[in-house]
């Protein structure tokens, strides 16, 4: 026990000797949150819009106004020539074009359905879908308002009801993707810190020869492992707290659920990442190798976690693969606790899967480590 304390003390001294390390510990989560939180967004705002108004009536103008008064669209031009629209979409001047047909107003007044055409640049399929969604909603709101406002129009339609489903999104009412992305960043920070620090910390001692020196002391290999794992776990938790602080300050998002549950789940999660770190150290002779292998692992873990790409959108084979990715479970758990305040008993399947992986990976890595250093 005493030996472990000396190892932990030594590790912290080495970490805090390095001023850039301390800066990195605060700077990294800050940058990641600001950049990733704002850049990885599936929200669509300021979408460049071109309008061709073939009707030119008060009604068509109020319809256009509905688009220009939201932050979602940015009217770049009113194009008279219908034929020229395609060119604007091709050369990227606009992502979306709306064509209001002739007799738009007349058709509305006489109770016919005018068809408004929308042309969307589909290169970014995701944004295109979102843009169309916004558009449909604006058109629908417009209809509802016409019916309400115009008593003359309303009369023949009095009995008619426009039935439309209006989905209510709870927990993230604005459907802001930051809210969804940000708890995931906490997971990434924890993943990066624990995998890299553990693997590189052990390999560094291999490189400089101190590991060999430690091995000729009566220290046990388990003490040696704990001496690495304890300080890096503590750092991991410090990082979680720092990241949560930034999230609150920058994005105003606090933890809905139990903090203790969040910490407990994090502790289960880092069993896996520490295990991976130890494993990497057993197959790497230099810190560069450790870095390379670490990246290789992390890219897959992150891509297959549902962090950017919803797992449901992946091909079946890949979806099955994600079940072998502990980060997948942690993503769900973090989002649930962070945004919904979900209690443990709804998160049991994910928790158990993660714990299973953690115990298996950690013990396998430790066993391999003990065999290797013999």
């Amino acid at each position, binding site marked *: 026990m*005493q*030996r472990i*304390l*000396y*190892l932990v*003390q*030594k590790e912290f*001294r*080495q970490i805090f*000797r*390095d001023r850039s390390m301390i800066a990195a510990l605060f700077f990294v989560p800050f940058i990641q949150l600001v950049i990733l939180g704002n850049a990885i967004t599936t929200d669509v705002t300021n979408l460049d819009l071109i309008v061709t108004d073939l009707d030119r009536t008060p009604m068509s103008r109020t319809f256009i106004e509905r688009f220009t008064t939201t932050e979602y669209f940015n009217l770049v031009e009113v194009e008279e020539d219908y034929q020229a629209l395609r060119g604007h979409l091709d050369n990227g001047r606009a992502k979306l074009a709306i064509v209001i047909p002739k007799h738009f107003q007349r058709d509305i007044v006489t109770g016919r359905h005018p068809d408004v055409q929308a042309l969307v640049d589909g290169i970014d399929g995701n944004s295109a879908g979102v843009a169309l969604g916004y558009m449909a909603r604006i058109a629908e709101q417009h209809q509802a308002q016409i019916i309400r406002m115009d008593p003359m129009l309303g009369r023949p339609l009095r009995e008619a009801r426009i039935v439309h489903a209006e989905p209510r999104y709870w927990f993230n009412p604005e459907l802001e993707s930051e809210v969804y992305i940000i708890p995931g960043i906490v997971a990434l920070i924890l993943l990066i810190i624990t995998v890299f620090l553990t693997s590189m910390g052990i390999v560094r001692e291999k490189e*400089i*020869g*101190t590991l*060999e*020196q*430690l*091995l*000729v*002391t*009566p*220290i*046990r290999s388990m003490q040696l492992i704990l001496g690495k794992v304890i300080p890096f776990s503590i750092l991991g938790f410090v990082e979680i707290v720092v990241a949560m602080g930034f999230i609150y300050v920058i994005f105003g998002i606090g933890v809905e659920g139990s903090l203790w549950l969040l910490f407990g789940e994090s502790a289960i999660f880092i069993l896996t990442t520490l295990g991976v770190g130890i494993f990497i150290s057993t197959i790497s002779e230099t810190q560069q190798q450790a870095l390379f292998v670490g990246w290789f692992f992390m890219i897959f873990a992150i891509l297959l976690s549902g962090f950017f790409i919803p797992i449901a959108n992946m091909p079946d084979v890949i979806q099955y693969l994600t079940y072998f990715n502990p980060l997948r479970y942690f993503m769900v758990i973090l989002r649930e606790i962070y945004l919904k305040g979900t209690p443990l008993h709804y998160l049991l399947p994910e928790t158990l899967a993660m714990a299973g992986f953690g115990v298996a990976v950690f013990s396998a890595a430790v066993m391999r480590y003990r065999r290797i250093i*013999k």
Partner: protein
Amino acid sequence: MQNDFAHEVANQRQTDPDLAVSARELTKRFGRFTAVDGISFDVRRGEIFGFLGANGAGKTTAIRMFCGLLPPTAGEAQVAGYDVRTQPRMIKQTIGYMSQKFSLYEDLTVAQNIEFYGGIYGLTRPQIEHKTGLLLDELNLRDRRDTLTQSLPLGWKQRLALSVSLLHDPSIIFLDEPTGGVDPISRRNFWRIIYEIADSGKTVFVTTHYMDEAEYCGRLSIMYQGRIIEIGTPGGLKEKYGLDTMQDIFVHLVGGDTRKEAKQ
């Protein structure tokens, strides 16, 4: 060394208390390559015993087996009466070890290195403080106590590393090419300390490929391709072959092919 483990160590000595190291047909193979090929010898307590050989002769592999870092493929070896195969932890508590690689933490201060290794060897806080004071006085490093180890000159680093490996008062100390890369003056100073260590009753087991260091050893064995091809005192060997220096003996025994590796 006043912890339980030390008592355990003291109670389990079995064989000839006069023998520090003994090897019988000790062999280590890596796949089809035989690094150490059936070596046998005894080292008495208080001796300065040298392992002379070119790079790749098997010196480091042999020393790693004695330190309990590497299990032998065949044969037997005892260090301080403990079997290298079954009692490596006992051996590790009893020996000191310093390798050709500089083994202190460069990013810790002198005092922090001493404290760390003291703690790892199971010394108590007061013991560590006491030892630190003694050691800093001995090495004349009192004013460098809080200096980062990386800023010390190489010769001092090695002396510090040696002192640190003696913190737990081992009865045998293994030095694997301890003076690599050090100038002859520092090397001679280093050997002065080795003599002091031996005078205090400890056994020194040292590997080297420097011929001048071979002259300093009380007794030495010459290794070639994993085998011990000669063993004796420097004086005895010179007499036997009628040659004046260890350099000549080494070249005579090993032949010209390794001359450039065995540095003057």
